[in-house]
C-alpha cells in the first residue's frame, strides 16, 4: 500500500509538470488549430534561464561578475532561510516566465502570424523550424553538454528533505513544491479564462476568430497573450524539471514535449481543463506502470492508454464533439 501511494505521488508530481506544458499546446491549438512544436523548446529555454537566474540570485561573486553586484543585500536574504528561498524561486519564475513568454510572442509574430492565412501545413513546418533553431541556438551559444542544476558549490538548490510523512510515505520538499505550484497555477489560469474579460475574449476567439474580431475583440492581442501564457507556464515546468531531475540539456524538451502533447490529446486538445486532467492522468499512469509492471514499458503503456482513449472518445476525455469546419 505504501509503495502504491509513493508511486502515485511520483506520478502526481510528474503529472503536474506535464499539465503545465500541455496547457501551452492546448491553448494555441484551441485558438489557431496549430500544433506548436516549438513549445517544447520553451520548456527547455525556461530551464536554462531559470538555472542562470537561480545561480545569479544565490551566488554573490557570480552576480558581481555579470554586473549585478547591487543584488547583494537581496542575495543575503534569499540565502537566509525558507522564506528567502521561496522568494528567490518566485523571482526566478517571474524572470524566466516573462523572458520565455516574450520569446513565445516573438515566435508568434515572426513565424506564425505571416502564415496565418497559409495552408495549415505551412505554420507546422515553421514551428518545427523554430524548434530546431532554438535548440541549435542553445547548443552553440550555451553548451552542448548536459549542465548540472545546482548552486556554484555543486549542491542542489532545494535541500533534499522530507517535507512530511503521509500514511507512512515520505514526501519530499521538491514534490510538495511542484504539486502545490502547478495546481495553484492551473487554478489561477482556469479562473482567469473563466472569469475575466480577457479570458472571455480568448474563449470567443477560440470559438470563432472572425466573429470575435467583428465583435470588437482584438484577435491579434488575444493570440499574443496565448503565446505569452503558454510559454511562461512551460518555463515554470522547465525550471521544476531541472530542479527535480537535476540537469538541463539543449534537447531536453523533446520527450516531455511529446508526452505533454499526448496529455493534451488525452484530455481533449483545445480544452484547458482537459489538458490538466490529461497531464495528471498520464503522469500517474506512467509512474504506476513503471512501478508495477516495468520501467522499460512505461511509455508503451502510456501510449496504449492514449490509443484506447482515442478509440472510445475520439475527441479526448473532455473534448467537445466539434463538427469539422470545412
Amino acid at each position, binding site marked *: 500500500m505504501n509503495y502504491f501511494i509513493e508511486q502515485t505521488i511520483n506520478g502526481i508530481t510528474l503529472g503536474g509538470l506535464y499539465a503545465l506544458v500541455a496547457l501551452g499546446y492546448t491553448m494555441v491549438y484551441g485558438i489557431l488549430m496549430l500544433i506548436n512544436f516549438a513549445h517544447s523548446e520553451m520548456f527547455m529555454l525556461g530551464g536554462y534561464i531559470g538555472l542562470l537566474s537561480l545561480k545569479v540570485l544565490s551566488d554573490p561573486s557570480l552576480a558581481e561578475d555579470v554586473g549585478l553586484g547591487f543584488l547583494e543585500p537581496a542575495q543575503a536574504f534569499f540565502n537566509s532561510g525558507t522564506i528567502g528561498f521561496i522568494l528567490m524561486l518566485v523571482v526566478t519564475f517571474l524572470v524566466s516566465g516573462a523572458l520565455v513568454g516574450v520569446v513565445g510572442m516573438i515566435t508568434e509574430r515572426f513565424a506564425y502570424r*505571416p502564415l496565418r492565412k497559409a495552408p495549415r501545413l505551412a505554420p507546422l513546418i515553421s514551428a518545427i523550424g523554430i524548434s530546431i533553431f532554438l535548440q541549435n541556438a542553445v547548443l552553440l551559444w550555451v553548451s552542448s553538454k548536459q549542465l548540472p542544476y545546482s548552486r556554484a558549490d555543486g549542491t542542489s538548490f532545494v535541500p533534499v528533505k522530507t517535507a512530511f510523512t503521509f500514511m507512512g510515505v515520505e514526501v519530499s520538499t521538491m514534490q510538495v513544491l511542484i504539486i502545490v505550484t502547478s495546481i495553484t497555477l492551473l487554478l489561477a489560469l482556469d479562473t482567469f479564462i473563466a472569469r475575466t474579460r480577457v479570458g472571455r475574449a480568448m474563449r470567443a476567439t477560440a470559438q470563432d476568430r472572425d466573429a470575435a474580431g467583428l465583435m470588437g475583440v482584438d484577435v491579434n492581442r488575444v493570440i499574443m497573450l496565448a503565446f505569452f501564457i503558454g510559454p511562461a507556464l512551460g518555463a515554470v515546468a522547465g525550471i521544476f524539471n531541472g530542479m527535480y531531475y537535476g540537469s538541463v540539456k539543449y534537447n531536453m524538451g523533446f520527450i516531455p514535449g511529446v508526452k505533454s502533447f499526448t496529455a493534451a490529446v488525452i484530455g481533449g486538445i483545445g480544452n484547458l481543463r482537459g489538458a490538466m486532467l490529461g497531464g495528471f492522468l498520464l503522469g500517474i499512469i506512467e509512474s504506476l506502470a513503471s512501478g508495477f509492471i516495468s520501467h522499460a514499458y512505461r511509455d508503451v503503456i502510456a501510449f496504449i492508454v492514449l490509443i484506447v482513449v482515442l478509440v472510445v472518445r475520439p475527441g479526448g476525455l473532455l473534448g467537445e464533439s466539434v463538427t469539422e469546419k470545412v
Partner: protein
Amino acid sequence: MARSTRLVLAVALALALALLAIGCGSNDGGTTTTAAGTSTESVEVVIGIGAPLTDGAVALGQGMVRGANLAVKEANESQELIDLGITLSTVEGDDKGDPTTGGNVAEQFASNQNLVAVMGHLNSGVTRVAVKVYAQNDILQVSPANTAVDLTIPRSNANYFRVCANDGVQGPAAADYASKAGFKTAYVVDDSTPYGEGLADAWAAQFEANGGTVLGREKTADKDTDFKALVTTIKAQNPELVYYGGIYNAGALLSKQLKEGGVAVPMMAGDGVFDPEYIKLAGAANAEGDLCTSVGLPTDQMPKGQDFIASYDAMYPGEAMAAYDAYSYDAAKVIITAIVQVAKDMGADKLTTPEGKKAIIAATQGISFESVTGTVSFDENGDTNNKAITVYKVVGGAWTPEKM
C-alpha cells in the same frame, strides 16, 4: 503586408547569419588540423574521428578528438613522416552517440577518397552500424572505447580493432571487486544500448556466480532523465549496491535521484561514467562512494604517462582529460604506425589507393609498440592484449583508483 514580410525576412536572415558565424567560430581549428609548412608534393592522408560531439557522452567524445589530434600533430612534426612525404589531417564526424547518425557519419567518411582510417567510435551501438560501411570501403577502424563483446567475438570484420579491453573482461572484474568488497545483494539497471546491456549482463552473471543475489533487473533508455519511479522500486528491494550499465549522462542523474530518494547505497558502473562530468552532474555529495571500472591502468601511473600528460597540457591548456583521451591517442598511433609501414613498403602515393587501404588493415594486425596505455598489440580477433582493468571510487569529489 509587404513591408512586414520583408522585416520578417530580414530578422530571420540576421539570426541565421548570427548562428552560422557562431557555428563556424567554434569549429575554427577543430575540424581540420593540418601541419603548416609542409612541402607541396606530400601526400595528404586523412584520418576520420568519429565520436559523440553534441549529444550523448559529449565529454568523452570531445576528449577522444583531443587525444587523436595530439597523436596526429606529433606525427606530422616527426622527421619520419616528413621524409616519407605524408601529411596527415583529421576530420571529425559527430555521431551523437546514435547508431543512425553514426551510419551517416560513416558514409560521409567513406566518400572521402583520402580517408584511410577511422579513430572511433565511442558507442558500441554506433560501431555496429558504422563498421560495416568501413568494411565495404576497406577503411581501417580502431576504436579506443567500444567494449561490447560481440564486435570482435566472433570476428566478423577484419578491418576492426580496439585498444581497450571488452566487457567480457570488464564486467566480471567489476563483479569480482564488488563481491570481494562484501556486497551481497544488488539491483541491476542498464540503458538498453548494446554497451550498457552487455556490460550489465556480464556483471550480473559473474556477481551471481560469486554468490551474490541480483534482486531485480530493469531497463531504462540512454536519454532518460526521470528515474523517480524506478528509485521507489529499488528502494522497496533494499539492495546493498546498484549496478548501472550505461553512460554518465543518465548514470549521474540515476545516482543523484537514488540518493535523494533515500537509497543510500553506492552505485557501481562501467567505463562510461568514468569522467569528472559524472560527479559534477550527480553532485559531489551524492556521487561520494560510487564506484566504476575503467579499462587499463591510471594514465599517470604508466611509464609513458607523465610525458603524455605534459604534451597534452601543452596542447590543450586548462582542459581536463576524459576517460578515453589516452586511448584515443594510442588508437590514432596504431593507425599512424600502420600508415607509415605501408608507406615504406608500397610508397606514400599508394596509401589512398584500394590496395593501399587493404595493406593498412593487414599491417595493423601485426603492430606492437609501447605507449601511454601500455603495450599495444592485437590478438586474432582484433582485441587488445592489454586486459588490465582498474576500479575507481569517488573519494572527496574525484575518481580515485582503488586497490583491486
